[in-house]
């Protein structure tokens, strides 16, 4: 019963992922569940097509955006707060990244 919310969240994350290698950040239950569901899709050394970010912190999101390949997607799977001043130009715009939050 206690693992069900993480299973639901992980399933929602999987729906948002593009094809290609995926990297998961964080060590919590959501991260572990996503890793398990992804199986062999984890990324190697090269920047992945998607990063699943499970901390929800501004620093964690920024690191995920930096890590993901150009044109790739960052899926945030954790509760988040608004960021009042974000460098969208460098963090998102120039590299054509996509950012989606699946936790409410």
């Amino acid at each position, binding site marked *: 019963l206690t693992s069900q919310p993480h299973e639901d969240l992980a399933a929602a994350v999987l729906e948002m992922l593009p094809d290609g290698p995926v990297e998961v950040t964080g060590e919590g239950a959501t991260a572990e569940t996503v890793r398990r569901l992804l199986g062999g899709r984890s990324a190697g050394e090269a920047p992945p097509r998607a990063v699943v970010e499970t901390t929800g912190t501004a620093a964690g*999101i920024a690191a995920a955006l930096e890590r993901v390949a150009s*044109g790739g997607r960052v899926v945030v799977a954790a509760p988040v707060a608004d960021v009042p001043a*974000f460098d969208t130009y460098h963090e998102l715009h*120039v*590299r054509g990244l996509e950012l989606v939050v699946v936790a409410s």
Partner: protein
Amino acid sequence: VTPDLRRVLDALRSAKGASQEAPLAGRLATRAAAVVRVAGIRAGRRVVWPSAGRALLERFELPAAGRGEVTVEILASAISPGTERAQYLRLPNARPAFPHHPGYSAVGRVVDRGRGAGGLAVGQLVAVPRAPHASLVTVPASEVYAVPDGVALAEASLTYLAIIAAYGVDRCRLEPGELVCVIGAGPIGLLAQRIAHARGAQTAVVAPSERARALVELTPGARLLHEVDELAAAAAIDAAGQEDTLELAASAAADGARVVLLGSPRGLQRLPLSAMGRRRLTVVGAHISRLAGERAETGRDDFRRFADEYLTGLRDGTIAAADLVGEPVDPREPELAYRRLADGSLRSAYFDWQRLEPSERVAPAPVLPRRSSAPGPVVVSARPRATGERLGFAVIGCGDIGAENAAAIASAANARVVACYDAVPALAQAVAAQHGAVASGSLDAALAEPGVQAVVVSVPHAAHEEVCVAALERGLHLVVEKPVAHDLASARRIATAADRSSGLASVCFPFRFESAALAAQALIDVGALGELRGSTITMLVDKPPSYWLGGYSGRATSSWRTSRAASGGGILIMNATHLVDRALHLTGASVEEVAAFASQSAETGEVEDSIAVSMRYAGGAVGSIVGASSARGGSSASGLTVWGTLGQIVLDDRPRAFTLHAAADGEAGRWRNLEAAESADPRVVYFERFVEAVRGAAPLDISLAAGVTVQEVVEAAYRSVESGRPVRIEELR
């Protein structure tokens, strides 16, 4: 060797080096290709930003089209009101290194094509994305797009902006009939709206300004919004990139929608992560540089797809852009255009390269290096024709300036010295002997001398009134050396006498006729200075102690220059009046209020040694005068500077002008010399012009009233010094 030519020559040398290892046929082909490129060098003009805030039009050279390339004569190049304005203002994320060659999107005609340049023909009209603002570019043929017949040049020049906008719309992943909301109504935002509309989407626009709202209202298919909440658009585009616009776009989007960031933010933005999570929004970056990355990864050329979509849309009438092209601007005035872009008075615009002469736009360039020639001086002729009839002058006062005036009269083709008088007879005799005139024994005798028709008065200032009034009452024409008198009341009495006399009266401000002053006047007359903002007069001289006892020459010993009663004052009334007149004459402005401080010295006796004057002109411009008699070593910077909204003129020992308009001499955005290589003695010109006025052949250039106006400024300054408060000119009337 110019940088462009150096690059070509370096290429030639490296081709030669590489050929050591190559087979003979290859070596010959390589060398032949390089030689062809060097021989095919063309010259054009391009816009350059040499440093922050500066923009110039410069000559440059570029090699002819090589394999797979085309050379295009640019006819119009769009100025981006977003990116280029941000770069000019050096906003965050938009700080180019200098020198910078700006440019964005252009259209032109193919003038040269290399082998393998596809199906493009010489003479074909093509859109050239990412072209610099230049009359000529050489680019890969794969990166230009044929413009269909019937498409207006200026609209085609927006092709790169349309590619950017179309990419943003693509990133929305819209289905036909879905609603997209565009935040921002600049060219990118409106092009995105129009492209989305042409693709079958419903569109709505949030426009920040009244002008933008008016544009939206004229746009087919666009719904103008003031509120976006509950709009539930299938996608939203932030084309504004402002602090709060991403948040606004998110508000306009339906749950699960894509929010596309299209306009480049010039600072930080609010990122609404909690709403994104609650509503499963996806924020999508859509910078055009990513499109190049996609092309490299997939091999798919969406640049061409979007360009063709826009250009055929223009041709078929499914996309409109005529209202987005803005104002044509002259490439010879780039700094003016960018300054207007910065202050918001120019919103959309394009450089109209057809305003340049064809020989400037595209010209064959010599291969040999050459020295660039400095811009030539402005030459303005002011001399009248000599008639042979010479006006007879009595020279009253034969000190330093009297002798100088006599010499100028003698040199003038239409004037002569008839009589001379001075309280010191030896001075009058010396000047009379020099010019074959009579040395008179009294003022009355000089004025009554046969042949005397005019008088030039060069006596101590307080004595001007007696001599001038006597001459005017006899009906003689009058030239009085500046200032008109030692004080304003006396000057006005002389002016009253002049009004009653049949003689013409003028104050001697000969430096109006210096070649540089005439050139400055010509620039101002065509509006090159714009609206007056200010003037500054600097007169720092080092008068030797002997000056105060006998002038510069020492021909006559007198202490009148140190007497307030005799002279009226020091450096301001004695010398700076020339520059005050020049400032008022050049600008046509009138002084309304004056405040001044002054100090004396042992050398200058009762009159000021140093003075600082602040002035306010009618209309709000400001002015200053700083003068000193004891600035040791003097100053080469003494002179006059006037500046306005469009330019600046400096009249000192290196007269020069800077104007944003390409006025009079065709130069803009750079300092250039105003001094003529050869010019006439301005004092001689002054007397020749005065005689022309007496003859009725020309209007009087410098009336006594001009001298009285200068005297008002001087009087106000001295009264301010005495009272310790600002003095309004109207208080003196």
